[in-house]
């Protein structure tokens, strides 16, 4: 059970959060101009990395804010947490 440092509320138990999949997949601004394949790439394709992964989390039973997390999926170590819109750490 992770201990997650919500950037708005501080450390909270994982039970208060919801995972929201891979981060930094921007919704295309002009979907109608994309081919089926390009749209499918946005819609369906996710990396599901073993190792360092950038993902979205939502403090759903707290402030309800979305934020980003860098997590090592091989050992569940949380490397960094940053707000939506902020640059991911290098």
């Amino acid at each position: 059970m992770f201990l997650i440092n919500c950037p708005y509320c501080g450390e909270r138990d994982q039970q208060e959060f919801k995972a929201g999949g891979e981060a930094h997949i921007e919704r295309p601004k002009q979907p109608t101009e994309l081919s089926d394949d390009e749209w499918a790439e946005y819609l369906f394709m996710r990396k599901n990395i073993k190792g360092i992964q950038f993902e979205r989390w939502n403090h759903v039973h707290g402030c309800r804010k979305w934020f980003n997390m860098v997590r090592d999926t091989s050992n569940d170590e949380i490397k960094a947490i940053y707000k939506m819109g902020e640059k991911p750490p290098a």
Partner: protein
Amino acid sequence: MTKNLRVKSSEYIDETNRISFKFNGKTYHGFKGDTLASALLANDVHLVGRSFKYHRPRGIMTSGSEEPNAIVQVNPGTNRTEPNVRATEVEIYEGLEASSQNCWPSVEFDIGGINNFLSPFFPAGFYYKTFMWPASFWEKYEFFIRHSAGLGKSPTSNDPDIYDHRNIHCDVLVVGAGISGILAAKNAAKNNFKTLLVDEKNELGGSTIFENNKFNKIDNKTPSEWLKKEIEELKNIKNLEIKTRTSVAAYHQYNYLLARENLTDHLEAKDKTNKIRQRLLKIRAKKVILATGALERPLIFNNNDRPGIMLSSAIKKYSEFYGVACGSKNVFFTNNDSAYESALSLYNKGINVEAIIDIREQSESKIVKKVKEAGIKVYWSHTIVDTAGYKRLNGISIMKLSNDGTSVTGSKISISCDCLGVAGGWTPAVHLYTQSGSKLKFDEEKQIFLPNQNTSQQISVGSCGGDFKIDEIIKNLNQKLKDNLNIKETDLDNIKVEIDQENSKRNIWLLPSDKPLGKTKPFVDYQNDATAKDIKLALREGFRSIEHVKRYTTTGMGTDQGKLGNMHALGIIADTAGVKMGELGTTTFRPPYTPLTFGTIVGRNVGKFFDIFRRTPINDWHVENKAEFENVGQWKRAWYYPINGETMHQAVQRESKAARESAGILDASTLGKIDIQGSDASEFLNRVYTNAWSKLAVGKCRYGLMLNEDGMVYDDGVTTRLGENHYIMTTTTGGAANVLGKLEDYLQTEWPELDVYLTSVTDHYATASLCGPNSKNILKKIIPDLDLSDENFPHMSFKEAHIGNIQCRIMRISFTGEHSYEINVQASYGKDLWEKCIEAGKEFNITPYGTETMHLLRAEKGFIIVGQDTDGTMTPIDLQMDWIVSKKKYDFIGKRSLYRSDTMREDRKQLVGLLTDDPNIVLEEGAQIVSELNQSPVEMLGHVTSSYFSPNLKKSIALAVVRGGKDMMGKKLFVPMENKNINVTVANPVFYDEKNERLNA
């Protein structure tokens, strides 16, 4: 004729408090402080169970939670009965009953014992190999296998006890209250760390508390005397909470641990009532100090499982702590010095020790000399080759061990004995450590796995960290505490320790016998009857991974998870395969460390607390008027209102007719309501709904369909424009929370530039939906000053009004196709509003209707219910709702997906109406639809999603999804049922009032 083997009064046993209990129907006596195991041993009872596979007689082996054999059913036949309880952990109380498991008709005479003599036919993988063919016979085999397997019986009536959960946050959690744990907790608390110390036993002190080896001294006292003083001092320390009878079950990441606190299991039945039995502690610790100690290893030799064969350390504990002799003729079998401590402990109490068999060549430690001085015979370089006695050990045979330890030589010596203490060295209890994700390394010299790479703020101290001697323990503990807690001084800086240096031990994982391995029974896993032979067979058959060998042989898969024998299994595999133990790795230790009751896991979430349920503000009225309820998400919704013993069908037919002929009223408070405000609110709605919103005038309502980005219908509902920048959106009852979450997600992550604010107001309003041709007349009576003319208040519009002092929002919208109004008031006035409507509606025969009638009425109109007529694979086009999808809008959620090649296929499943050729036959929802009857296999074209008998149309109607259904209008299809085939015709899904004339009736 039970013998009394109580030898000496012990400070932990209250001999003034005699307790009677029953085991296998027979009454015995023990004392307050006894465990079931110690009390049975005091009565000379060793045989307590039968093994799982061969039904061999088994006795008590240990004195703790690692016990593999003495697994009993507590209080059989009562509602408090519990199977698979370790007799070594049950504290006795007046009236306790326990019985053996896995035996029939009794533990003394067990029919299944025949398996022991058939054992050559039950090798590892026996079940896999034997019951494979013919495959169709498995069900027959299973009946017999299930019948003969199984440990214990689960209770058949409700658990009368209360269970609880508690969250604990602490700076330092210390697991295990042996000498290391006590010193760690004391020093942490003294340095202002909020500290929690837990131990699974009822007394603090671990094994040191009965450590009376006179050659070990701490500050010139025996370790037990010294530790008692330390424990006494704990009472005066602030910041320290101590929990005994508390077993840590799981150590998760981020220092999150689950522990079970046992509160009433040791009490008499009369003291158990109305108390919390067990509490699950959910502990979040900044730092964890594991002081879980070590488990003594057995030795693996032929017939090493007979009742009377125990761990040497257990014999010592029964003698020193409980004052019980485990036998009257004792022998020890060892590879290290610890058996000598046990032997001396017995000798000092006047208990006969016949001999010590030591596989080492010699040892010169003080304690060995002392044992020799006591005149106890020591056989060096000898090993046990066989044991005798079926239900109780009565003798052993020993032979000289060859120099390389792989064979025996010379002549056989027989020794008569009734108890054998086995000492194979110590295995650090690293179970919790590895559960946390931390990694072990193998120490070739000590032949143990030790903590290596920690993943969280934790340290392992004492013997679980590999320190076995008191001087090492204190020195290393001191340093680890200083480093980990960042403190400069501790109590341990000036402690003087003297110890008796132990000679190195000799480790042989599988001891030889004069018989070949195939003819012997050296048990590695006692509970699951896995022998060294089974492990070697698995290797011969090609298994290499330790995890595979474990599953094939079931080694370590019992309720004890192989706490005793796992190391030997690894050792035998490594020796046989010629690899190093360190390379082999270990199997995974999984939570729980010891079994948990379901009660502990569930806590208070039972009965009506199992799940949250929500009731509308009008609920009391529904109850008073005898409504039947159905669950919709978490809501309890009125389903129908039977009168005079009506069936559901009769009630629904009556309610449906009344709603169309005069007036009906529905509690619609459960619909999700989201208040949307902000200067970009209109733009936001444009993006989340398929239709256009910019031109909706203030005071008007519009139906909206919401898609997922994949183009599939997600939710629907009516949204009203309350002001220039103010909307109220309604969602489906079940979808409310998810819709809000989805909208928030887009606002926060994709469109943060939009000025929009969302607030869930579902619970803030109560909603009465008034419908039918007389709804207007009723509303007129309640609000006489409101102009209800079609010009002033047309369909799909909104008015604010007052009923007396109560402010209300009225939407003229309809889910039934009738002229209707949804009246919203502040939740607390909900029941008042409802009663006013009922009162005003009396002259029009106003009829309250529930969700079932609502479903029927909307089905007559072909209105979908998201989640019933859709299943996450339906686009608006599939639903024949093209009219609501804007062609002009550049973008909305899911738009692009509607133009994917797959979503544009003509042969997708599409929503259609179905009419049965016989108007009285009502289809079953979920029934399959085909186009051919005499064909097998036949393609399934689709299924029925909604089906009712319509009292207004006087015929059966149904909605269905059918492959290519859009172009099948009028086509004959079939619904094959178990006993008949139903002929149906594809129809327009709008069955009633196709021209929507009734909306303005």
